[in-house]
């Protein structure tokens, strides 16, 4: 009976999250509270169980990176890079878009997607206004690029952080398995931009002088802070990459980096905590408790056994279903709760494969599907929602369907290529 009630509470909370009838944080906390009231979760399980409790590695990795971003934001480095890039292209629209989406993709791989678009969108609006270009295609392209670029690394997209922590995958695992395909996808994406947004590329030589008059050096507010932040960010990346040698968890690396930046920047708490999304962190905690309860009552184990028996050794089929299914669901609902729920099931499948590369590749199928699927609709990823909000506040409303008709094409093409990559790399030979 308890199991039925736990499943009902989980499904109820999930429906509330997906339909946004109440705020997703309230829904996740209500779900977690229901698990406590049903007697499945107690403080020991919620706070100290590595299997079924809150995954503090995920929470503190996110917190550390958010603090790092808060400090980086104060430097004005993104504004500098974007203006510098636009000036290098002499204001030609398509090359400007290419450089802006490349900056967005790289930044999204190193930071989180939402922060990246929050930092790059304002300067994009400025560049477009100076050049007399419609900003909407540029903003949509950046949202899509952030979701593609974020796929490349462990820290690039929240689903990757969850997968890495639950599967015990390292920063390098992500970089080596997803990095190459993301580079290919970015090249294809740039080609798609040329076609999809062709009507936006009107070159007006008279407006170029307005762009060239922008002084990018002026936006660097504190050169010393910029240098110190750059050094710490490089060291954090080195810490992630050298995980196997240093044996320091990514969450610890991020917290050490955040602590170093706080000490070096001498910023006040409101400044270095500015980009910390407390609601997101609490949302994650609620989700972990909800999913942990499913594990506690044995639902995940039984589902995992059923899926493992159904899959057998047909890992290509499982990977295909996982990448396409994840993409479809991530386009419709938030990919964070989806990945948090599916991860234990994939773990069962991978364990059953006893370390076979074909089974291990299921993690990459899940990451690629969940991350790239977010591009499919206007609400598929947080970055999309943020960009649409910024555009609306600046007098450039983007309707759901306008975003989706570009996003769906990009999602379809990139997932098809990602599926081909999975097949060629892990199953074909």
């Amino acid at each position, binding site marked *: 009976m308890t199991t039925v009630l736990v499943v009902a509470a989980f499904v109820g909370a999930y429906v509330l999250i997906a339909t946004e009838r109440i705020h997703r944080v309230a829904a996740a906390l209500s779900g977690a509270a229901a698990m406590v009231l049903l007697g499945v979760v107690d403080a020991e399980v919620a706070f100290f169980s590595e299997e079924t409790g809150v995954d503090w590695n995920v929470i503190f990795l996110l917190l550390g990176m958010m603090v790092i971003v808060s400090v980086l934001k104060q430097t004005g480095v993104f504004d500098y890079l974007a203006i510098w890039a636009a000036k290098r292209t002499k204001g030609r629209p398509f090359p400007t878009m290419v450089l802006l989406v490349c900056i967005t993709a790289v930044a999204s791989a190193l930071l989180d997607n939402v922060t990246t678009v929050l930092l790059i969108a304002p300067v994009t609006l*400025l560049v477009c206004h100076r050049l007399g270009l419609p900003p909407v295609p540029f903003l949509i392209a950046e949202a899509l690029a952030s979701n593609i670029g974020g796929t490349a690394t462990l820290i690039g997209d929240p689903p990757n952080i969850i997968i890495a922590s639950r599967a015990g995958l390292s920063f390098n695992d992500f970089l080596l398995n997803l990095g190459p395909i993301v580079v290919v996808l970015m090249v294809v994406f740039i080609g798609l931009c040329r076609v999809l947004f062709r009507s936006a590329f009107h070159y007006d030589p008279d407006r170029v002088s307005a762009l060239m008059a922008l002084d990018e050096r002026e936006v660097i*507010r504190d050169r010393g802070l910029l240098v110190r932040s750059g050094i710490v960010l490089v060291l954090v990346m080195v810490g992630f990459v050298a995980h196997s040698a240093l044996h320091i968890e990514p969450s610890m690396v991020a917290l050490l980096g955040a602590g170093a930046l706080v000490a070096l920047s001498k910023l006040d708490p409101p400044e270095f905590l500015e980009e910390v999304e407390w609601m997101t962190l609490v949302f994650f905690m609620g989700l972990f408790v909800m999913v942990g309860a499913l594990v506690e009552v044995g639902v995940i184990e039984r589902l995992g056994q059923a899926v493992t028996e159904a899959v057998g050794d047909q890992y290509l089929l499982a990977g295909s279903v996982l990448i396409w299914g994840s993409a479809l669901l991530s386009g419709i609902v938030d990919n964070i709760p989806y990945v948090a729920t599916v991860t234990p099931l994939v773990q069962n499948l991978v364990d059953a494969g006893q370390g076979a590369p074909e089974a291990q590749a299921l993690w990459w199928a899940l990451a690629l599907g969940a991350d790239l699927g977010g591009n499919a609709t206007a609400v598929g990823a947080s970055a999309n929602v943020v960009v649409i909000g910024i555009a609306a506040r600046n007098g450039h409303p983007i309707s759901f369907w306008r975003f989706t008709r570009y996003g769906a094409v990009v999602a379809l093409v990139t997932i098809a290529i990602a599926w081909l990559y999975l097949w060629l790399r892990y199953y074909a030979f």
Partner: protein
Amino acid sequence: MRAGELAQPFPMVTPDTEAIVAAQAMAGARLPGLIICDENGRPYTVLPGSQVLRFLVPDYLQKTPGLARALDERASDELFRKLEHTTVRTLLPAPQDIDELPVVDVDATAVEVAAVMARMHSPLVAVVDEHGTGRIIGAITASRLLDHLLPTSSGP
């Protein structure tokens, strides 16, 4: 002293007044805002100077003030040209966002006026002859009120 005595003549501006004319009136008289009246001369809302700036400066520059440092004089001229060919109506907040109007009667005491300003965070109040025509007879700015209320200083 009563509100009627503290009130000063104020430029009459309606939602259909040209925005540039209204802004120039505000700047020329160094006013913190303007009282917008309807066609019958009754006060309708207050247009604070900050609302005019909010209209002129794009949201992305308001949220990222550091970015504004990259703009040259020509760019700022272009921003401020937005007031041309538009009316006060476009500067006003959406109807549902318009706050309660800071209005006092001609008989209101100075402290009463101060209380209205403080409660509504308004830099000025409209003074209306509520028992007569109901029309605005002038306005009181925060600086005018403070000048009256503060004790005369005997020096630093």
